[in-house]
């Protein structure tokens, strides 16, 4: 473990990513404590510019709501949707990829054609359609994001499993009479973990972007303050009140950047043979 951290921390960017993400998580967790009032509550006059009142350092929006409080609650929504939808996508993608890769033949053909079916539809368009069909709430958004983001997982896992299943230790397991389910679960999947973890960290970032885009288009959960919604609501007044879209934008940028940096660091740490060579 300490060895892992040593390799991870050799990538300076990854450490910065961890710090940024830690701040975002902290803010999300502490949001109800820092801002006991609902972020939807009007607290001051509309369009209060940043730094003009100590109590509302980032100003207020078109309806006089506190931007800073909105950011804090938005962090909750973004992280929740990012993590849960990624977990859901992994739950779909890993079994499909593992079964296709392990059994090959007809099973592989059927499962991969099914996967390609989802891959050929532009993912954002599909997400919009899905959210529009169901009513936009947090469950349907998570479901939509998971549905459009599992195919790459399935492809990755299939490829890994294909190369692992011809390893001698898998053959030894077959010979020792273990069932296919045991072999996949105990011999094959643990060895696919590293690339899956790296992919997952990047998928969280993509999911946050997707959620923001959906909210920007007004397809977010109407009861939840999210970064995308804040930018979307501010787009008509972008020239009068730049701060309304600027701060949520920076929040999205930093969070996504942090996740990408972490993903890269994880890649270096988990696949040392692929890591850039130390000079």
């Amino acid at each position, binding site marked *: 473990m300490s060895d892992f951290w040593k390799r991870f921390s050799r990538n300076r960017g990854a450490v910065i990513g961890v710090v940024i993400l830690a701040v975002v998580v902290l803010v999300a967790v502490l949001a109800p404590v820092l801002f006991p009032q609902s972020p939807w509550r009007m607290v001051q006059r509309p369009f209060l510019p940043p730094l003009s009142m100590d109590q509302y350092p980032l100003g207020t929006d078109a309806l006089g709501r506190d931007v800073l409080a909105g950011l804090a609650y938005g962090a909750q929504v973004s992280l929740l949707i990012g993590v849960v939808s990624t977990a859901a996508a992994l739950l779909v993608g890993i079994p499909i990829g593992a079964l296709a890769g392990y059994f090959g033949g007809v099973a592989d053909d059927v499962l991969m054609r099914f996967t390609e079916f989802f891959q050929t539809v532009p993912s954002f368009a599909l997400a919009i359609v899905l959210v529009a069909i169901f009513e936009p709430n947090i469950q349907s958004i998570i479901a939509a994001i998971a549905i459009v983001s599992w195919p790459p997982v399935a492809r990755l896992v299939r490829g890994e499993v294909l190369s692992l299943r011809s390893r001698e230790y898998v053959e030894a*397991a077959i*010979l020792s009479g273990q069932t296919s389910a045991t072999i996949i679960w105990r011999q094959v999947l643990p*060895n696919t973990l590293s690339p899956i973890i790296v992919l997952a960290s990047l998928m969280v970032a993509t999911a946050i972007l997707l959620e923001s885009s959906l909210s920007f288009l007004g397809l977010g959960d109407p009861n939840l303050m999210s970064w995308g919604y804040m930018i979307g609501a501010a787009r008509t007044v972008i020239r009068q009140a730049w701060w309304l879209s600027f701060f949520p934008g920076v929040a999205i940028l930093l969070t996504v950047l942090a996740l990408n940096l972490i993903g890269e660091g994880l890649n270096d740490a988990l696949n040392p043979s692929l890591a850039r060579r130390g000079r």
Partner: protein
Amino acid sequence: MAITEPVLSIENLTIALPEGADRAFAVDDVSLQLFAGEILCIVGESGSGKSMSANAMMGLLPDLVRPVNGRIVFGAVDLLDKTEAELMDLRGRKLAMIFQEPMSALNPLMRVEDQIAEVFEAHRLLTPKERAARAVELLTEVGIPDPAKAAKAYPFQLSGGQRQRVMIAMALALEPEILIADEPTTALDVTTQAQILELIRDLQQKRGMAVMFITHDFGVVAEIADRVAVMQFGKIVETGTADAVLDDPQHAYTRKLIAAIPRLVAGQAPTRKEKPPVLEVENLFKTYRTGGGLFSKPRVVEAVKDVSLQLAEGETLGIVGESGSGKSSVGRCLVRLMEPDRGTVRLAGQDMAHLKGEHLRAVRGSIQMIFQDPYASLNPRAKIGRIIAEGPMAHGVSRREAYKRAARLLELVGLDVSAADRYPHEFSGGQRQRVGIARALALEPRVIIADEAVSALDVSIQAQVLDLLADLKERLDLALIFITHDLRVAAQICDRIAVMHQGEIVETGPAHDIFNRPQNAYTRTLIDAIPGREKELAAAG
């Protein structure tokens, strides 16, 4: 040999490894001299630093490894002081190198003649037309059949031996003074190896080159060396003429290495009572079909053709053959890692070849396999104890009982019981192979198939593992099928031997008869090609 100046001398060379490696120096205070017109063999086990010394000469050391002391004097200059550009000029022209794996040393997308021409081009010699002509001349010299055609071929169209010949042609293109050969025959079959060794020896004599030949195989040393340097842990422990080192080794390590080489004399099998066969294979066929879509014909390879075998209780049967002879396919068909097309495999009354699903799973325990690669055959994310206990657990043994059995087996194969709580990467190749053996024994099989089980191991470790197998076989009354390309190993461990060639068994018989009175022409070529055989026969009188 007249006393002359060496063409190349290595003086007190020390090469440091990066921090955290298993030792501080890859090469530690090594001094060597290479004279014109001699073949100097550097022998050692893996990790002894033998390749690192050669790479230092060519300026091909890995990034984090650097020489910290010593000189490599060639002519009047120190190669270690040379800049990359100066080295580039020397490489190929004065010093040339051939490698172990010709497929990865050649560019797969270039025709052979272009690759040879590139050597001239790199040194700005000759016109393109002359280069092409020279390429064909060189290919003729290294004895490739139909050189004009081979010049137009891509590497994948040539056999392993032919590719190594192309590599040699490239190395000789600029008539270097020194040829460094790093395990050039290790990846080749024994008959091809014999041809390549002969070629290297011929060319060396014709051109008066100095050859530095790096190998782990004392058989090869006996065939080709004038002088020998033995390396261990980065140090040279012994140097001398080939005869002196082989016949009268001074250093304990050299003696140990030479003693570990399996002798080519197959013992007369002890006359045993006729035991009932435990495994009977009849008319086994396996054909591979690859490729072949709508528009192309599939490539068909008959890997196993009408193979019949019998294995008696407590017997060791060797299946020997060169790569592509189908010996591994037979092994895999027997354990059903591969589906045979036709034929029966009767194991204790059951036809293994046609069982399915649960039935197959249930009888699998009685025939087990030991794999070749000790690094790929253990799950890197499982502890040793679990690796061994998994099999019994899959057959309904309780977890406690299975782990107890694993501990017993670890002791049986000569490992400490505490190994059960450790991961495979903490063990050496030989220890891992012991774990592989323990795993195979965990299901109390009646037959064990060892597929090149010692081929990946150093010779001293190999000897230990072979001893272990022989001992276990005796104690547990196992029947063993030993698949190998190495006839020395087969001679040492097998009671009977089946020789395979192109998917068929060409000869079967007691080991002693196969080695002393081979009936089949192919068996004879195979046995004649074993490196070091003549020397051994001479020594035996």
